[in-house]
């Protein structure tokens, strides 16, 4: 049965800049916002936009991601026709390859897309926090009679050189693409979200694959080729909250912005655009007598006996008596022992912070960055983890890092 549009979600990134957080899981599986993982955002956007078939392209540490996605039921993607599929590289009669680039990842799965024979394919990225209605994007694509459209954000001119920029005319038709230029001609940054007409996508991916010099990348190869051939390419302006969470500081920042929806624009309380996730199945959380909880988000299974300010706690976090948290992102199952002081940091899943340990420090100007502790790490009693530290192995009692 033909589909109007299916989604291909690029989730193969290693997320090397998140180092301690992505040792054992792919970037899209990194927990976010108290009870979500990053990939919940594009998946929920798909379902809320009426897209019921999603291929997830993955090749780095897929175990957690595979288990998390399962049959897709939490996102309503367990469908009779379509649904969600995890697509790792696979062995073919003519040999096998890792995904060489974003374009190659889709190229290797052309036969998947063919099964649904869609009119349009939307290419999504698995490392962005964004609530976006893809059906509105598709409406724009159809109105413009486009062959290719890219979602763009207006960014401040001084920041424009950090982005891939789309130069567009007054009808939003793209005339030029500049990748991180010194002298930007546009401030429309590509969000890495594309809608292709299926025949165009197929033709250009096949052509690109035949080019031995190509990096098989959408930004570096496919888009320049489309421009070369003067295809009907349009820029769709998106103006909501959008954040690439590829670095520790941007991930921390995005989490903190969840606490301040009025100013940041990321609102998880939107009943009309719910973000779905796989549930922890834990009991309601408990705030004990003597605890302090302010300006924070707490979810199921947490037990709070200490002080928690301006922090986000994921499922099953325990904060013992006398522990102090501030500006902290603490992922599921982590235990903060009594007297520990945990500030301005990201603590991954199932970490133990020992009695009296100190992790991170509040920023002083530019000086103190975000401290990070990787999953499963045990930080000993009275150990000290400085700001900017990236801890991936156990730290002995009293040790300083």
């Amino acid at each position, binding site marked *: 049965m033909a589909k109007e549009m299916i989604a291909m979600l690029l989730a193969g990134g290693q997320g090397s800049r998140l180092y301690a957080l992505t040792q054992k899981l792919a970037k899209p599986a990194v927990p976010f*916002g*108290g*009870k979500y993982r990053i990939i919940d955002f594009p998946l929920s956007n798909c379902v809320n936009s009426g897209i019921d078939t999603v291929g997830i392209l993955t090749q780095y540490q897929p175990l957690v991601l595979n288990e998390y996605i399962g049959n897709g*039921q*939490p996102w309503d993607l367990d469908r009779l026709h379509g649904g969600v599929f995890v697509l790792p590289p696979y062995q073919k009669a003519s040999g096998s390859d890792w995904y060489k680039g974003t374009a190659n990842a889709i190229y290797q799965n052309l036969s998947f897309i063919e099964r649904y024979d869609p009119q349009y394919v939307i290419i999504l990225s698995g490392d962005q926090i964004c609530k976006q209605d893809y059906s509105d994007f598709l409406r724009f694509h159809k109105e413009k009679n486009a062959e290719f459209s890219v979602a763009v954000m207006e960014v401040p001119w001084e920041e424009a050189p950090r982005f891939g920029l789309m130069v567009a005319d007054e009808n939003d038709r793209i005339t030029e693409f500049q990748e991180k230029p010194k002298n930007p001609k546009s401030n429309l940054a590509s969000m890495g979200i594309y809608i292709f007409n299926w025949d165009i996508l197929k033709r250009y991916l096949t052509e690109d694959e035949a080019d031995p010099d190509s990096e098989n990348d959408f930004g570096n190869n496919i888009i320049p080729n489309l421009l070369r051939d003067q295809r009907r390419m349009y820029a769709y302006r998106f103006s909501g909250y959008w954040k690439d969470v590829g670095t520790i500081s941007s991930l921390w920042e995005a989490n903190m912005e969840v*606490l301040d929806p009025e100013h940041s624009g990321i609102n*998880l*309380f939107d009943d009309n655009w*719910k*973000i*779905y*996730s796989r*549930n922890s*199945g834990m*009991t*309601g*959380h*408990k*705030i*004990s*007598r*003597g*605890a302090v*909880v*302010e*300006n*924070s*988000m*707490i*979810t*199921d299974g947490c*037990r709070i006996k200490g002080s928690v300010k301006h922090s*986000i*706690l994921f499922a099953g976090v325990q904060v013992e008596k006398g522990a102090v948290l501030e500006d902290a992102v603490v992922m599921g199952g982590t235990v903060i022992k009594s007297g520990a002081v945990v500030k301005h940091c990201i603590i991954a899943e199932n970490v133990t912070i020992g009695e009296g340990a100190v992790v991170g420090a509040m920023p002083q100007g530019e000086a103190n960055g975000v401290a990070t502790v990787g999953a499963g790490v045990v930080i000993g009693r009275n150990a000290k983890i400085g700001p900017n530290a990236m801890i991936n192995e156990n730290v002995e009692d009293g040790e300083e890092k």
Partner: protein
Amino acid sequence: MTKSNTSALGIIFPNSYDALVPELVNVRLMASIPFASRYRLVDFILSSMSNCGIANISVMANNNYQSLMDHLGSGREWDLVRKSGGLHIFPPFADKSSKPYTGRIGALASILDFLRVQKEKYVILADSNIVVNFDYSAMIDAHIASGADVTIAYNEQELPASVQAYKGNDRGIYYTFGIENGRITKIFVNPREPGVQNFSMNFYLIEREMLIDMVSAASVHGLHYFERDVLLPQLNRLNVQGFKYDGYIARISSLQSYFEENMKLLDDYNLDALFSRAPIYTKIRDDNPTVYASGAKVQNVMAADGCIIEGEVENSILFRGVKVGKGAKIKNCILMQDTVVEPGAEIEYLITDKNVTITAGKTMSGTDTFPVYIAKHQVV
């Protein structure tokens, strides 16, 4: 892997003892009463069964069952979407002569054809006014080891005053046992003895074929009550064994006990005793995490996801999506799903049902022995 010889199917009676909590069952039934911030009473029995590999469960919905149907859905949350077995909901079969089920016998008689074609060797019958994290596998093992015809779970406790206060059968019959060497030799119907009793939990384990025979015979004779009319007269002939349960148990026997049993879970010791053995599943609502605003003061509180807390909350249980406005003060309350307490309101010893709104600046309070109940959708 099939274990059809030793496996059991479950039958749940969701309306059991409805009459003990008339306020709470006005718009629902016992099984769908919200409990412990994010659950319904039936979640505990369903999850316990599911965790023990019981994957063929029938719910004998008698009346007021819309909320239960909505809660159960396809049974997916309890892993009960199965090709073989799964979740069945049996409301009374509606025809000209039909009435609500009368007692366990009436309900079971209506599904005899269904029971005959099932494959499980045993049947477990269970009421839903009891909150336990129960090991049915251990009960089945004990049943097989003892060679019993029927095994009934019980615990040792005093009878709740609310249960003793009623005469007759109109609020549901309750039972205690005289037990000798594990065998139930006496069944007391609506007893009034003070002190600790062997109090029936109304979980019954019996071979499916035997149950079919008993129910067929009893329904022909117009009998209603399985315990009083079938087991009691045959205690000499049948080997009826008691299965003693020592774990955490909450019995909902009145609005007061509902209040107290919720509040008990504010003690971590009790919470762990109830939840740590095996997971309890419930319907998912996909709420965001709960937000505590700056200026929120929270002491000794259990809360589910989706709440926004801007005021002060003490000694209370908050269900999903509760909103507490700035300057509001909440003490010793149970606030069910989507209750809104507007800024400046002060409430104490209140049980608010779903979607209640306490308007700004209002003050209301019950007492520890008489919590005030506010019905669903009310605006105070």
